[in-house]
C-alpha cells in the first residue's frame, strides 16, 4: 500500500446531514453574489477545521476576504504575491518542521494550505508550485479554477477552455474566443509523482470535503483542482453557480477523480452523460459557438473522458 492509501485507509468521510459547524472562513466576505469559487473554498475550509495555516495567492479570494481592517479568516492566513504562494507555504511548512524538531514549538499537527486561481496556478505560479511539489513539502495546494483571470477583469489564462470569450480572447471576425485547449493542470501535478491529486466540484460538497480531508491526512504534497464557477466571468446568473458546476460533471466536461499514489480512481462515473451543448448554453461566454464548434468540443471531451476511464481501469 502506498503512503497515501495507507494514510487514508481508515477515513470515514463526511455526510450532508452532519456537516461540521466550523467555519474557518467567516461570513462578511465580499465575494460576488453566487460566487462558486468562495463556495468551494468555504467547503474546503469546513473540511480542514481550524488547525491550519492558509497561504493565499493574489486573486479574488485574497481581495474579497482581506480588505483592511477586517479579515474573513478565523485561521492564520498570509498573502504575499500572485505567483509565489507555493513557495510561501513551503517556507511556513519548513519553519514548523524546524521549530518542532528544535523544541521551539510543539505544534506537530498543523495543516498547511496554499490556494490560488487558475492564472496563479497554471500560468504565473506554476514554477513555484512545481518546485514545492518536487521538493515534497507536506502541504495541500488547491487550484480554484474559474477558467480566466477574473480578479483583473476576465482575461484568458492557460486554463480557459477552447472557445470561451474573455477580454483578451475576444470573439471577432478572425477569432472564436480562446484558441487553445485547457491546460491539464492535474496531469502536470500527477507527473510530479506526488501522493495525492484530485479534482472536485462544489456541486458535490461531500466528495469535495472528503478529498480535502484526505489531502490533509496524507504526508507530502497534495494537489486539488476545484472547478469554481464564476457567474460574473462566465456570464450566467448568480443562482446558477452550483447548477453549472453540476452540469460540468454530468456532461464530462469536468470529471471527478482521484490519483492516489499514482493510481487513478474515478470518483463517479457519468452513466448517462448530458450533451456538452447543454453545459455550454448555460454560459454566455460560449454563446457565439456554432454547432460545428460544439461538435468539435464534444468530440474532444468524449476522447478525454475515454482516456480518463482507461487510466482509471473503468470500462467505457
Amino acid at each position, binding site marked *: 500500500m502506498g503512503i497515501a492509501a495507507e494514510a487514508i485507509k481508515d477515513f470515514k468521510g463526511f455526510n*450532508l*446531514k452532519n*456537516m461540521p459547524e466550523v*467555519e474557518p*472562513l*467567516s*461570513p*462578511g*466576505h*465580499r*465575494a460576488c*453574489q*453566487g*460566487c*462558486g469559487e*468562495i*463556495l468551494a473554498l*468555504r*467547503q474546503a475550509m469546513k473540511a480542514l477545521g481550524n488547525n491550519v495555516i492558509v497561504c493565499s495567492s493574489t486573486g479574488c479570494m485574497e481581495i474579497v*476576504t*482581506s480588505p*483592511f*481592517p*477586517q*479579515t*474573513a*479568516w*478565523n*485561521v492564520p492566513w498570509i498573502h504575499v504575491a500572485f505567483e509565489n504562494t507555493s513557495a510561501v507555504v513551503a517556507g511556513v511548512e519548513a519553519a514548523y518542521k524546524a521549530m518542532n524538531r528544535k523544541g521551539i514549538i510543539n505544534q506537530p499537527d498543523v495543516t498547511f494550505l496554499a490556494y490560488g486561481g487558475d492564472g496563479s496556478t497554471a500560468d504565473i505560479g506554476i514554477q513555484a508550485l512545481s518546485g514545492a511539489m518536487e521538493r515534497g513539502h507536506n502541504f495541500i495546494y488547491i487550484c480554484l479554477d474559474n477558467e480566466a483571470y477574473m480578479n483583473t477583469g476576465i482575461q484568458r489564462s492557460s486554463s480557459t477552455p477552447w472557445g470561451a470569450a474573455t477580454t483578451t480572447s475576444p470573439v471577432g471576425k478572425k477569432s472564436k474566443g480562446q484558441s487553445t485547449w485547457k491546460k491539464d493542470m492535474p496531469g502536470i501535478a500527477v507527473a510530479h509523482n506526488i501522493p495525492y491529486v484530485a479534482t472536485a466540484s*462544489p456541486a458535490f*460538497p461531500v466528495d469535495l470535503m472528503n478529498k480535502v480531508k484526505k489531502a490533509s491526512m496524507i504526508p507530502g504534497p497534495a494537489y486539488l483542482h476545484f472547478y469554481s464557477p464564476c457567474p460574473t466571468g462566465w456570464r450566467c*446568473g*448568480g*443562482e*446558477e*453557480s*452550483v*447548477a453549472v458546476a453540476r452540469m460540468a460533471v454530468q456532461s464530462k466536461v469536468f470529471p471527478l477523480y482521484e490519483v492516489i499514489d499514482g493510481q487513478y480512481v474515478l470518483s463517479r462515473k457519468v452513466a448517462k452523460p448530458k450533451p456538452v451543448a447543454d453545459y455550454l448554453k448555460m454560459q454566455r461566454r460560449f454563446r457565439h459557438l456554432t454547432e460545428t464548434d460544439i461538435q468539435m468540443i464534444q468530440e474532444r471531451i468524449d476522447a478525454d473522458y475515454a482516456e480518463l476511464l482507461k487510466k482509471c481501469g473503468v470500462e467505457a
Partner: protein
Amino acid sequence: MAKETGIMSWKELELGVAVTKPGSAGELRTGDWRSMRPVTDYDKCTKCGQCYIFCPDMVYKKNAEGYYEANLFYCKGCGICAKECPVSCITMVQEGD
C-alpha cells in the same frame, strides 16, 4: 470605532499592517447587497441541508428543531439556495423599500 473602519493613525497599525482580530469581516453587513431575499416554507422543508452547504455566504444555520434559518445580515440574495432546494421550499422575494 477607528479600528473597525480602518480610519486610524499610522501609530495604531499592527506590525506590517496585520489584522489581529480573526473573522472580523463578520462585522460587515453584506446583506445590504441584496435585492431579493430567500423565504423558506418550513412546511415543505425536509432539513436536507442543501441550502446550508451550497450557500457561499454562510447564511444558513441549523436551529434547535433542525431547520435551517437564513441570517439576512449576510445574505447577498444570490438565490443559489432557492435554485438548489430539492423540494423547492425556498422562494426569492423582492426586498421592499
